[in-house]
């Protein structure tokens, strides 16, 4: 049986926790707004650039090593994007579980599987499971930058061009809405442009004879490099927005639970206090009765 003082101190500590979770929720909500804006604005650009590449690819004028589909890829690189900080509900563990399953699945199919972890949570999780990462990037700046994505994208392209890998996949949380995110695995390289082409869909009924200014090879090189950078940046931005969303929801729930806990504890506290008073009264009255006799 806890004493009144014990309950009092538990109520106080729960209140403190609630204050922290409420503050974290506010901070996440503010960050989420910015991150959401960024990702919503970036998506059209990323989609348009892919459909442009697809159109050009459909003309058959240019062939590019990064556009060549590979029927039997043997060397796979998986890039897993998590966050540095926890307390975001299932955000990190969902990605980690998904990636873990994926890595087990591809083990037999590929001759070589390498991994890169972005974010401390993923890096730690797989280190504990004995995965040797080619690279892991932790302590990301508060918000991932375009320059950083460009750096990462160039490195992936270099590795791919050198023939170190013939398939590169990204695993990350896709931002659906403020309260939901979904883990997706996306093939970054080689570029699968077949679905995005408006020419392939036969819209407009145009010939595939396309005019290029300047030469197609020159444009394609730049365009594809741009596309990869934008895709990497988009995935990171998706992950950041999803993280803030997940943390906001998690902290909102925590605040609500703390509130319930405080109510229950307060009720217990009052009951106990009332019981103590009743006991005292009984003692007094029975004492008085005894004196009368």
């Amino acid at each position, binding site marked *: 049986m806890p004493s009144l003082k014990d309950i009092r101190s538990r109520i106080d500590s729960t209140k403190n926790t609630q204050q922290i979770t409420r503050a974290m929720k506010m901070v996440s909500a503010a960050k989420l707004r910015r991150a959401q804006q960024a990702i919503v604005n970036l998506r059209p650009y990323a989609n348009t650039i892919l459909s442009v590449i697809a159109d050009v690819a459909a003309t058959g004028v240019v062939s590019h090593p990064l556009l060549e589909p590979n029927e039997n890829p043997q060397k796979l690189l998986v890039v897993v994007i998590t966050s540095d900080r926890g307390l975001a509900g299932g955000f990190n563990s969902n990605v980690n579980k998904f990636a873990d399953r994926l890595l087990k699945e591809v083990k037999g199919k590929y001759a070589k599987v390498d991994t890169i972890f972005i974010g401390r949570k993923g890096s730690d999780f797989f280190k504990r499971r004995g995965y040797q990462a080619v690279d892991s990037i932790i302590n990301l700046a508060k918000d991932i930058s375009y320059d950083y994505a460009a750096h990462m994208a160039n490195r992936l392209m270099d590795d791919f061009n050198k023939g170190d890998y013939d398939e590169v996949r990204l695993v990350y949380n896709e931002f659906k809405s403020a309260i939901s995110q979904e883990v997706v695995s996306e093939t970054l390289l080689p570029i699968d442009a077949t679905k995005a082409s408006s020419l392939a869909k036969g819209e407009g009924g145009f010939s595939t004879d396309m*005019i290029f200014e300047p030469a197609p090879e020159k444009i394609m090189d730049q365009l594809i490099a741009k596309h990869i950078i934008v895709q990497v940046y988009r995935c990171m931005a998706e992950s950041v927005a999803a993280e803030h969303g997940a943390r906001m929801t998690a902290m909102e729930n925590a605040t609500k639970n703390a509130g319930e806990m405080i109510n229950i504890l307060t009720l217990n506290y009052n009951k106990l206090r009332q019981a103590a008073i009743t006991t005292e009264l009984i003692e007094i009255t029975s004492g008085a009765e005894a004196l009368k006799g």
Partner: protein
Amino acid sequence: MFTLTLVTPERRVIAGAEIEEVFVPGDRGELNFLPGHAPLMTTLRPGIVRYRLKGDSTVHRVAVSSGYAQVNGVGVNVLAETAETVDSLNPAEIDAALAEAEARLTAHDATVEELEEMTHKVEVARVHKELLSDSSAAH
């Protein structure tokens, strides 16, 4: 159906609006696209994209820095690095950017890449000025 989509990494400026015609600053000079134009792909130089919405004679202007433009059967896609309309420009900021870029251009310690970047910035600033003066003349 002939639509115009103009996007930058930061925002979507025009989302598939149906248009009569559009002018874009192509790599080898200004290009005019009308419905039924042959498929084309070009890089952009700093300049002003002008377009007219369907059934409207008003010419809208957007200043772009660099990027790509593509014509396919259904319309025009413009992928710009930056895109500014008259409302989003601030004359004081343009002057400051121009002055800074010009100052760096005359500096002796500048590298070749830096010179190229600054030349590009000067061009962009001039295009922004042009956009502002065009619109003030129109009123």
